């Protein structure tokens, strides 16, 4: 086997002797590598963002969400949904492993401001909502215990709501919710979105006000519970489940009339969709990689046919078939290197551009780098085996054919 500067130069110059051919080989591969890298990186970025948001919602490792009504996690409730009451919250609050319990009652309602109408999610909550969700006030203030006790008609807006309603001066302004006027007392900090769900397009009123004035019910939609640090999460969740079942007087064979959503379930739920989409797109990218492999195989075979005389000459001058195979595999290696590099750089650029127009943040990772070069290398080597073998079988006797 020969490997030295002269050999590398020889392989390179043979490649460069047909620049059109080389260009299309690199183009085919670069195209699919760019797709592959970009999809992979964006998938990773989307996933990270969801995890960040979940963490930001304080849906950390020691919090759980309890929703009224039994059934599948995100599906519609399959039991009664009017059984979860404020007394349940009080009972849970007394447990020593519980740090915060934050109940809520919410639904989508029409909200009006000077002729403008928007359907927005309205949640009745307690002042501890901010702490439970690791959220802060951006402007103004949140409502107080007193306002909760007094069924006050005050409202705190999510960051994007004012813009949606076309509000100029915000604090002190009155908006109409479900037919009643509420005074705006505060705006919350920007929170982003969870998957496709916009967290900043919600508005908050005192829980009591929501029960009495907006929905006219005495039950709750659910609550969020944050446990004391260092307590056994699984055990906590089981205890809460038992307490709720006994308080709701459920019989042994009756299903839960509530759903407990844990961080693991939430993460799985939100990353599953993005994973499914990524897997689908990655499959397409891999198929395009195979197509580019076939293109490379064809172009390389054409190139071997074009260079048959030179290959025959090498054989006549003492190269053996291994040397020839080696020559074309190395040639494929160079193509894979060029394409891998170009594909990687273009995808970095593309991710950057995409991040300018979408909330996705580009994630630089050596993962995409390795992905690019790895797949480039594998594709090139696999699809150059056939042309390389073909080259090695050229009969050197063709050199003496009279022209």
């Amino acid at each position, binding site marked *: 086997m020969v490997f*030295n500067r002269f050999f590398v130069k020889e392989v390179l110059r043979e490649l460069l002797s047909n620049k059109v051919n080389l260009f299309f080989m690199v183009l085919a591969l670069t195209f699919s590598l760019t797709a592959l890298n970009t999809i992979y990186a964006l998938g990773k970025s989307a996933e990270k963002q969801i995890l960040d948001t979940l963490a930001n919602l304080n849906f950390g490792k020691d919090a759980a969400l309890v929703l009224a009504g039994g059934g599948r996690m995100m599906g519609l409730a399959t039991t009664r949904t009017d059984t979860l009451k404020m007394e349940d919250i009080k009972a849970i609050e007394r447990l020593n492993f519980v740090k915060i319990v934050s109940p809520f009652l919410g639904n989508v309602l029409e909200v009006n401001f000077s002729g403008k109408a928007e359907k927005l999610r309205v949640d009745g909550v307690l002042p501890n909502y901010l702490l439970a969700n690791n959220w802060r006030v951006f402007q103004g203030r949140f409502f107080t215990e007193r306002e909760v006790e007094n069924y006050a008609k005050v409202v705190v807006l999510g960051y994007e709501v004012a813009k949606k309603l076309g509000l100029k001066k915000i604090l002190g302004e009155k908006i109409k919710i479900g037919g009643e006027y509420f005074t705006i007392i505060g705006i919350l900090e920007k929170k982003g979105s969870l998957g496709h769900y916009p967290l900043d397009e919600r508005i908050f009123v005192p829980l009591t006000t929501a029960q009495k004035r907006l929905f006219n019910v005495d039950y709750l939609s659910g609550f969020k519970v944050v446990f004391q640090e260092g307590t056994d999460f699984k055990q906590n969740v089981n205890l809460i489940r038992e307490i709720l079942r006994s308080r709701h007087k459920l019989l042994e064979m009756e299903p839960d009339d509530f759903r407990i959503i844990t961080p693991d379930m939430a993460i799985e739920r939100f990353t599953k969709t993005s994973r499914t989409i990524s897997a689908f797109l990655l499959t397409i990218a891999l198929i395009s990689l195979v197509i580019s492999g076939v293109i490379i195989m064809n172009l390389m075979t054409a190139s071997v046919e074009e260079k048959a*005389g030179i290959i025959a000459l090498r054989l006549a*001058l003492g190269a*053996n078939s291994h040397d020839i195979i080696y020559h074309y595999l190395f040639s494929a290696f160079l193509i894979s290197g060029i394409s891998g590099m170009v594909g990687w750089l273009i995808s970095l650029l593309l991710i950057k551009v995409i991040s300018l127009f979408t909330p996705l943040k580009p994630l630089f990772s050596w993962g995409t780098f390795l992905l690019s070069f790895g797949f480039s290398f594998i594709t090139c080597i696999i699809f150059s085996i056939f042309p390389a073998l073909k080259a090695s079988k050229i009969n050197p*006797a063709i*050199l003496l*054919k009279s022209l």
Partner: protein
Amino acid sequence: MSKPLIQLIDIRKKFQSGKITYEVLKGINLEVYMGDFLAIMGPSGGGKSTLLNILGLLDRPDSGLYLFEGREVNTFSEKELSRLRNQKIGFIFQAFHLIPWATALENTLLPALYGGEITKEKIQRAHELLEKLGLGDKKNHKPAELSGGQQQRVAIARALINNPTLLLADEPTGNLDSQSSEEVIKIFENLNKEGLTIIMVTHEREIAQRAKKIKFLKDGKFIED
């Protein structure tokens, strides 16, 4: 008398063209000794190139015995044949067959590449050969920048780089004008004087007559004169 460098006994070669097979070589017997300078003449299509391919280990005969330095070539593996071609045989072609993107110097060094290492000595030898062949100022020229005669001299330098025992030339002057032809045959004469064994195919009588011996190949056999 010493043992022959090359011995061919009843070499036969058939080709298939569609359904018809025809015998191009119909029993060739030949002995070539060290220091010989043999010219092979004959009509076009007579099988001269086919014979040279077999002699140069580029093709195998269908039957017959080929002894190179007393060893039976039929039994050699593909690797051993490559090695023999690389170390013992130099080729000169009618169409020169230089690599278009490589310089005269790099073309000369090509057999050294497949011989293993391109050593300092090989590079030195390439320089010397090109200078000796009057190409001292053309070392870094590409084939397209050289005349036919100059290209054939680069091919000769390439054939000599690994110090072969045998030089095989198929119509070496076939593509050259008379002045360049003269230069090339002169080089062959000198090389032969220095001890190199040469087998040359040509259809030009004046060129053939510069060899020490001439054989005529017709209808797949040597004509005994």
